[in-house]
């Protein structure tokens, strides 16, 4: 799996660190907005958010910045606002295309096998820990050789198949 983190994940991790270590809960905006901010970020990372959610996230951040009591709360939302502004593209991609190019938002990813490239070598089926890959190895001269497929409901996005595939037949979108 790639080490690079997408902007959404970075913003999410930073905000979670704030809620775990600094958020005191004594002033209302900061404390009441936190569950909503977390919710939007989590949905973005899952691929359940829309463009409207990103707009709302920006609005919440801006308002909390105005109303929060202390600089810690203000800093947290200011950083988040900045992230949305700087990485607008990444946020839009998560919200609209439901894609995470850095593949750090695992839940949004979709593993699929390109039938054109699949040689039915069976390696991916062997390594898949979830049994999500189905297919039969290639038998020469047989008429019913079909390429392998990944059952999305079973796939855990562990990327094991990606690593064993010698033919680059597995694509992540």
């Amino acid at each position: 799996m790639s080490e690079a983190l997408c902007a959404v994940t970075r913003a999410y991790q930073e905000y979670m660190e704030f809620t775990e270590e600094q958020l005191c809960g004594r002033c209302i905006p900061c404390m009441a907005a936190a569950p909503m901010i977390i919710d939007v970020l989590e949905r973005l990372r899952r691929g359940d958010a829309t463009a409207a959610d990103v707009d709302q996230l920006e609005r919440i951040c801006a308002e909390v910045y105005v109303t929060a009591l202390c600089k810690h709360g203000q800093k947290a939302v200011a950083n988040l606002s900045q992230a949305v502004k700087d990485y607008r593209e990444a946020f839009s991609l998560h919200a609209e295309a439901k894609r995470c190019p850095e593949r750090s938002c695992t839940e949004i990813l979709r593993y699929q096998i390109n039938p054109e490239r699949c040689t039915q070598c069976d390696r991916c089926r062997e390594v898949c820990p979830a049994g999500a890959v189905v297919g039969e190895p290639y038998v020469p001269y047989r008429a019913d050789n079909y390429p392998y497929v990944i059952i999305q409901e079973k796939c855990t996005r562990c990327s094991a198949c990606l690593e064993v595939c010698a033919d680059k037949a597995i694509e992540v979108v």
Partner: protein
Amino acid sequence: MADLVTLTIDGKGISVPRGTTILHAAETAGIKIPHLCYCPGLKGTGACRICLVQIEKVKGLVVSCMRKVAPEMVVHTNTEEIREARRFVVELLLSRHSGLCLSCEKSGSCRLQQYAYELGIERPSFPVRDPGYPVDESNPFIVRNYNLCILCGRCIRVCRTQGSDILDFMKRGIETRVSTALDKPLQEAGCDFCGSCVGVCPTAALMEKNRRGKGREWEFTPLRSYCGYCGSACELYYNLKKDEIVRVTTEAPADYLCVRGRFGYGYLTSGARLTTPLVRRDGELVPAEWEEVLELTARRFRELRDKYGPRGVGGIVGALVSNEAAYAFQKFIRAALKSGNVDSGLRFSGLDLLRECDGVLGGPKGYASLEDIAAADVLLVIGDVWRRVPAVWGRIKRAADRGAKVVCLGLYAGRPTRVAQVWLRPVPGAEHLVLQQLAAAVLRQVGERRVRQRVAKFNAFKKELASAVAVPTGVGAEEIAKAAELWADRKAKGVVVLAVDGVTPETGRAALNLCLLTGRLKNALFLGHSLTNAQGIWRMGAVAETLPGLQTGPRVTARFARLWGATLPDIPGLTAKEMLAEDSPVRGLYVLGENPVASFPGCDRVAARLKKLEFLVVQDLFLTETAGMADVVLPLAATAETGGTCINVEGEVRQFREVLPAKTLAAWEVIGWLASKVRLDAGYGVLRQLKSEILTAAPGYGVKAGGTPRPAFLPVGDAVPEAGPDGSLRLVPLAARFGFYEGSWALHGGIRALCRFGGDCVGLAPEDAERLGLEEGTAVAVTTAYGRATAVVRIDSGLPPGVAAMPAFAAKTNTLLIPEAPNKPVAVEITKL
């Protein structure tokens, strides 16, 4: 004034004193800034962020409840930017407020709802999450639904300021909520249900339990009156809906009421209230007509008076009735029955001490008020006064928070001892000696010369101090010295907080001497009393020695004879003590609003004596123990039904309001009717007429602003606590024990929640309980030289070893006490049943 600050708020120029917050300044200009966490009377925290305003040349928005005004400030309170910020905060709050306004009790008076309306929030922009906290209904008074909590922290601050200090924010961040330590239910956390938190809660998170389902606040009519329980007679508002009391509120949300004031109104509407006269027929009390009963009463009193002379009849009045009732009562006994035997139950709860203190302090103007306590720098809190007059506690706490030094004298480890700098914990019965030793130490610091000039009888006082110094009291010299240092600081405003009915007379006199010693004569002694009208009853002349207005002497008697148109008996008639003595001549007795069989010390003997009467009339709210023995029982109307006045512990005349429709005739109407049957008479039955007569007889209700030019030290006496053998126990009546009031109203009125153990328990220190092999809840026999009772053991670590505490005011406790000295500890045996 020099330090006025002029500023502009919303275009209005206003001048306010320096140090005012913008919120207050705006209020004076009639501009209301919405706020949730700020509550008048409590410190601000600036947490809710609703009261945001804009100040020109200041970056960002600022909270108006914290920001102080500055000259030339230009403030805007209602721009679109501010409204947007406020709207956002309210929307956020709504996102975690899962309540349904449609069915909410607080609907119409909820601040959150009001602001949502004012800011035009039509539908929530955020999804609503239910926090899913369980609703706590485990106590009898308060329902806590933290799903509706907006974490404004008002309840926490009010609990810290004047309550039990048990609430706080628990956890952190998103999981923050208000709770007690370890999430214990209130009754286990040490709450005494003053209900201040309910009073300040802006939503329905904290609600009175009894109020549920009884309507919305716009349907209630709040009627201002005074509480009728203890001597402080706190101001309160009965909120009525169609003649039913639905809730009790205060003028400002953070004003203090105790559990009795806020939740104890049930006695007024209790089904157990007497509403018709009862008469004894074939040994049974049966309902009868007023006419018939009063005819019988008048005839019997006439017969007894003719047979045994005027000394054969008498009357005892309780200290919970109004001035008017007490006045009419004593007039009836004196002018109509022509007997001097009129007295009050106050005789057993500090009447002499009250009179002595009043004499030295020169009338109520010299008493300390509750506000004096709050403003004091040094407080000397004696005994369980904070339970007898609960309003005292809030003031002590406020003073302590402000930095006042508190010295506590008492054996119970209660709340005042926690805020005290010095806790003097004597062996029971040595309280006055500790005060004497304290006085000796103070005298050494103050110097004799000036005291001798200022206060008379100094030599006798000094002699008593010398004899008290060496007596062991259980209090170390170090503590005495520490307390003396605090008290000897004559520049500090010092107040002695005393419960007149909760201490021995020696202790009370020693406390007064301490005030005199340091020149604290004016507003330095708080004369707390458990009974509402303790001050009024004796001023109205309902005691054996004096006529209304504290007047005595042949000329006064003659004047009253003219006023009442009757020949009057010799004025010092028999006191209650003498009337109830074994060999007293009294054969017929009229008892008004008093329950001697339960509330007089040595009440077993009282019961035996009452059985020997030929005729007993009892007029009371409930069918009390005494009423159960009576030949005629008359119903009594409560002060909240008939109006009338009382005089509270601060010496103020308080006018009760007729809040509820009367369940029966007013006391003076009954007495007037009765008087007309004994002797043709007028001038009792109509309240207004009675009041003007009282004002003639006792100008200003006898609240006189006299004054003693040169006060004198009072003799304290040299009573020394008897030292029993090791391991022996002393019985002490203690109001501080077992939580709530144990009074006849609560008991008979069916407000069981107010008397948790029904006055049926004996408190022991854990050590003693272990030594005696007793456990919590063991049934025991408690025996003193004066009586025997059964009780249930309650182990209380607040008690010192060697003390058995029983609730004050309870009948069983009174059975065991010395009839002459109710507050004196007695040797007691406790055996397992």
